[in-house]
């Protein structure tokens, strides 16, 4: 039995979802909810809170779907909404602090990870960062934002963004060395 898809492609899904077609919206939700929850989880330690933020993000996606101009990928557009919602959540929780600290010379390059490290382990390492370090590290290292974009979104200076990243990398290095994962100095 051949299953005939109800919607031909994503653009068709999106056009129906704009008209408040609940079925189309459900399809989009099921397609992207897993990835978006992962995005929120990178910033928010508690999974329950991360899911709530993800639902808030999807609510804004479907109520402002007419604003999507189809200039970039739909996934990238949803992702940006999720990151903004996660940062707003952390601001409300008042967990985020950005301290202006001088950048120390050297030690800003992490060595390769010698052992296979899974995503869960990486997430655990990131969760141990202070909120300010974690947000900047995730936005720069994982999401690929530039310091200028990070400074604008977090309303901080570019220097603060750089120093936060430096501190995060230093802390990560120390943790990896403690766990004997990074082969520091063996090269």
């Amino acid at each position: 039995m051949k299953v005939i898809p109800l919607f031909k492609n994503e653009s068709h899904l999106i056009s129906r979802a704009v008209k408040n077609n609940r079925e189309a919206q459900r399809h989009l939700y099921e397609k992207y909810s897993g990835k978006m929850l992962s995005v929120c989880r990178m910033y928010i330690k508690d999974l329950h809170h991360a899911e709530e933020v993800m639902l808030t993000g999807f609510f804004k996606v479907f109520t402002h779907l007419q604003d999507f101009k189809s200039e970039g990928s739909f996934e990238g557009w949803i992702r940006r909404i999720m990151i903004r919602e996660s940062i707003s959540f952390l601001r409300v929780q008042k967990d985020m602090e950005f301290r202006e600290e001088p950048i120390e010379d050297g030690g800003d390059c992490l060595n390769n990870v010698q052992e296979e490290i899974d995503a869960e382990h990486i997430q655990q390492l990131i969760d141990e960062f202070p909120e300010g370090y974690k947000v900047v590290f995730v936005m720069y290292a994982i999401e690929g934002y530039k310091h200028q974009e990070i400074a604008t979104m977090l309303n901080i200076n570019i220097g603060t963004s750089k120093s936060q990243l430096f501190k995060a990398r230093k802390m990560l290095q120390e943790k990896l060395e403690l766990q004997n994962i990074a082969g520091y100095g063996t090269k």
Partner: protein
Amino acid sequence: MGRNRIEDQFKEKLIHREIAPSAGSWEKLSGQLNSEKKKGKPIIWWIGIAATLIGAIFISGLIYNNNYQPDNAPIVETPTKEIKELPTITEPAESKKGVSERIANENKIFKEKPSSGRNKSTTILKPKTDAGLVENAPFPIISDKTSNMQITSTVTPVQKEETIEQEVSKIMGNDPAIASEMNIIMAEIAQLERNNGKIEDAEINALLSKAATQISKHRQERLASEKIDAEALLWDVEMDMEDSFREKIFEVMKEGYLKARTAVVNRNN
């Protein structure tokens, strides 16, 4: 500060990661979307109603402005009747000289026509109460140009006498001093007629002057005793003026208001 390989490895592991949401998450989101949909409709209704009301008020204002045409003509009080009548003695604030002059003018109509041999064109109009009034007395032609009483109509003598009698009655009725002096004069004239047989004009003039003096004296006495209420005078004048002007303004405003109200009601229906 560039990227390093650990970060690339982290990115590769995390960027494709998926975490399955809890079971009822879609239902929760769907409920939020449904409530948002319901909330949106009344707002649109209220916006529509508000826009309709604003439009109706705007249109009614335009209609009112178009229909309301201010009366550019000056509001002028026109007298209700021609001022060609005998003056009435009602102003107590007259000067002594003015009073005397006016009384002298008025009393010209009371000049007696001689019983015979006189061809003067003046005659005395006796008061109505006087039994000796001659019905067929010649038509009184008062040719004194300084007088205010010029009879220019072409009524018959009898009708003219009646008009003059009415005016005389009015004058006498308004001021008792005049009435009393007139009675005194008539009595003296009658006495002179009995004594001398005929009366000279000079004697009549002397009697009239004396009467005028007495009347003005009575008036001065009355003025001194009477209190003039300036407020009442002003109020009377103001009410007379205001009634007509104010009524006109109210009428115009009332018409405009009713028209605007009708337009709004029709628009809403």
